[in-house]
C-alpha cells in the first residue's frame, strides 16, 4: 500500500501540521509526498529529508503558486491512480482541496482524523470533540485530512528521499489569486507553538491583548483567542482556537478571561498542561484546567509578566 501526502510549505520549509500528516501516513504504508507550487525546489528538498518519506513528487508550475483548489485538485486526481490513500493536514489548504479531490474520485472524505485503526478504519471527533466516532470506509481510495494535534510530527531531518518532477495538468482557469494579507508576527504559529496563551471576552477590548504580549515573549508562546473575542472584534479570526478555528495541543495552554464554552474546549483540551485565569470561579474552563487562578486578569497578567521576567 502506498500513500500520498500533500504537504503545506512556506519559504522552503515543510509546515509542522504536514509533518504530523506524514506521521499518520506512516501508519498506513509507504509514504510519498507531493510538493506543489512555483519555484519550490527548496521545499521539495526539505520534504525529501523527512524521515519515513520514500519519494517526493514535485509539481513546479505557476498554476500551483497559490494552492488554488481547482488546479490543485486536478493535479492530485491525476496522481491518484498509484495510491490507496491521499492525505493532507487539516489546514486551510488541506480543508479547501481534499474534499474536492474526494468528490472527483467518487470517495467520501474522512475529515480531521485523530487516530488510525487500520487501513479502512479511522477515529475522528464529531460534535466539537464531544464524541469520538470510529468510522470504516468502503471506498477504494481514501481521502483523508489529519488532525495535526493528534499525531506527533516526524522530525524535519533524517530522511533522504529522491525528488521526481511531475507534469502540471490542464485545469480550467475559473479562479485567480489576488492578494494575501497575512498577520506579521515574530511569534510561532498557533498550531506549532510549544506554549499558547489565549484571551477571551474577559479581555474587554483588542488593546488589552497587549497585556498578553510580555508573557508570550517570555515563554516563546503563540497568542490565540476564543471565538467570543473574535466575534467581539478584539482580534482577527486567525487567532481563533476552537471547533470553528484552530485545534491546538501545546505543552502549556494559558486561557485568560475565557469562560470555557464547549466550542473553545474542543480546540485546546488535548493540551498537556492547561492554566486558566478567570475572575469567575464557576467558569467551566476550571473544570479542564490543571492549574486555576481565580483572579482579575488586569492585575494577574502584569504580575505574571513580572514573575516570568524575574525568573
Amino acid at each position, binding site marked *: 500500500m502506498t500513500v500520498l501526502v500533500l504537504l503545506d510549505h512556506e519559504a522552503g520549509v515543510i509546515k509542522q501540521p504536514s509533518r504530523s500528516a506524514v506521521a499518520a501516513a506512516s501508519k498506513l504504508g509507504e509514504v510519498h509526498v507531493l510538493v506543489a507550487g512555483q519555484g519550490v525546489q527548496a521545499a521539495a528538498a526539505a520534504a525529501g529529508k523527512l524521515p519515513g518519506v520514500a519519494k517526493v513528487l514535485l509539481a513546479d508550475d505557476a498554476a500551483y503558486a497559490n494552492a488554488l483548489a481547482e488546479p490543485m485538485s486536478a493535479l492530485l486526481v491525476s496522481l491518484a491512480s498509484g495510491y490507496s490513500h491521499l492525505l493532507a493536514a487539516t489546514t486551510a489548504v488541506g*480543508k479547501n482541496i481534499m474534499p474536492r479531490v474526494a468528490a472527483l474520485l467518487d470517495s*467520501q472524505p474522512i475529515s480531521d482524523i485523530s487516530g488510525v485503526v487500520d487501513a479502512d478504519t479511522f477515529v475522528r471527533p464529531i460534535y466539537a470533540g464531544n464524541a*469520538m466516532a470510529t468510522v470504516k470506509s468502503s471506498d477504494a481510495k481514501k481521502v483523508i485530512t489529519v488532525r495535526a494535534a493528534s499525531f506527533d510530527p516526524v522530525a524535519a531531518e533524517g530522511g533522504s528521499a529522491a525528488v521526481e518532477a511531475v507534469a502540471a495538468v490542464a485545469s480550467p*482557469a475559473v479562479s485567480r489569486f489576488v492578494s494575501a494579507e497575512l498577520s506579521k508576527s515574530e511569534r510561532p504559529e498557533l498550531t506549532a507553538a510549544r506554549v499558547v496563551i489565549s484571551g477571551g471576552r474577559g479581555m474587554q477590548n483588542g488593546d488589552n491583548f497587549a497585556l498578553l504580549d510580555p508573557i508570550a515573549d517570555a515563554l516563546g508562546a503563540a497568542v490565540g483567542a476564543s471565538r467570543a473575542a473574535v466575534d467581539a472584534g478584539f482580534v482577527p479570526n486567525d487567532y481563533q482556537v476552537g471547533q*470553528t478555528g484552530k485545534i491546538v495541543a501545546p505543552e502549556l495552554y494559558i486561557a485568560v478571561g475565557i469562560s470555557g464554552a464547549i466550542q473553545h474546549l474542543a480546540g485546546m483540551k488535548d493540551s498537556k498542561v492547561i492554566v486558566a485565569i478567570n475572575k469567575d470561579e464557576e467558569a467551566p474552563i476550571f473544570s479542564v484546567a490543571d*492549574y486555576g487562578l481565580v483572579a482579575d486578569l488586569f492585575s494577574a497578567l502584569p504580575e505574571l509578566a513580572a514573575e516570568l521576567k524575574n525568573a
Partner: protein
Amino acid sequence: MKILVPVKRVVDYNVKVRVKSDGTGVETAGVKMSMNPFDEIGVEEAVRLKEKGVATEIIAVSLGVAACAETIRTALAMGADRGILVESDADLQPLAVAKLLKAIADKEQPGLIILGKQAIDDDMSATGQMLAALLGWSQGTFASELTVDGGNLTVKREVDGGMETIVLTLPSIVTTDLRLNEPRYASLPNIMKARKKPIETVKPEELGVDVTPRLTVVSVAEPPKRQAGVKVGSVAELVAKLKTEAKVI
C-alpha cells in the same frame, strides 16, 4: 441570478450532546434542533445579495427527515423565496448530499450556491468543496466577504495566518465563515409570510442518486475526560507549580 442555499438541521449549538450508552451515536431524541449556524450565515448573505439587487430568487434546500421542512421554514422566514426538501431517512453523508445538490443545481441553474463551511454535528467541512467538484465550478471556501461584479465573484477567505482574496468566475460555490455577516432574526410578520411560501418535496430516487453511505460508524465513544486540577492562590504559586511540578516553563 438565482441563489441556492442548502440548510442543515442539526442539534442546536447550545445543547451539550451525550453519547448513547450503546455506543451507536449521540442522543438526538427530544433534543432541540436548529439550523446549522454557518448555514444561517449563508441564508443571510443570500438575502443581502437579493436586497442589493444581485440575486433574483433564493431557494433553500434541506436534505434529510421530514422535520427538515422546519429548517427550510426558518430560511423562508429570513427571506428565502421557496424551499426544496429532499426527504430521506437514510444517513446522508456529504458525498451523497453533494450529488443530490448537484441534481438540484442542474435543474434550477443557480449562479451561486452558498453553504456553511461546516456542519456542527459531523464537523466534516466537505459538502461545499465536493459540490463544486461535481459541478465543475469554482469554489471560495471560508468566506468572510463577497462581492459580485458582473460574471465575477471576489471572495475574501479566512486562511491560516490571515486573509486571502481570490476572484472566481461564476457560477461558484461559496462556503461561509463566521465573520461574513451576522444573521438576522426573522420578524413575526415574516414568519407568518413564510408559512405561505412553497416547499417542494422530492426523494433521492427521483433525483437518480444512490445515497448508500460509504462510511460505516463502527462506534461512537465519549472523549477521554480531563480531570479538573487544583486552584492556586497567587501568581507566584502558579509560576512555581509550572516550574517545579508541571515542568513546562
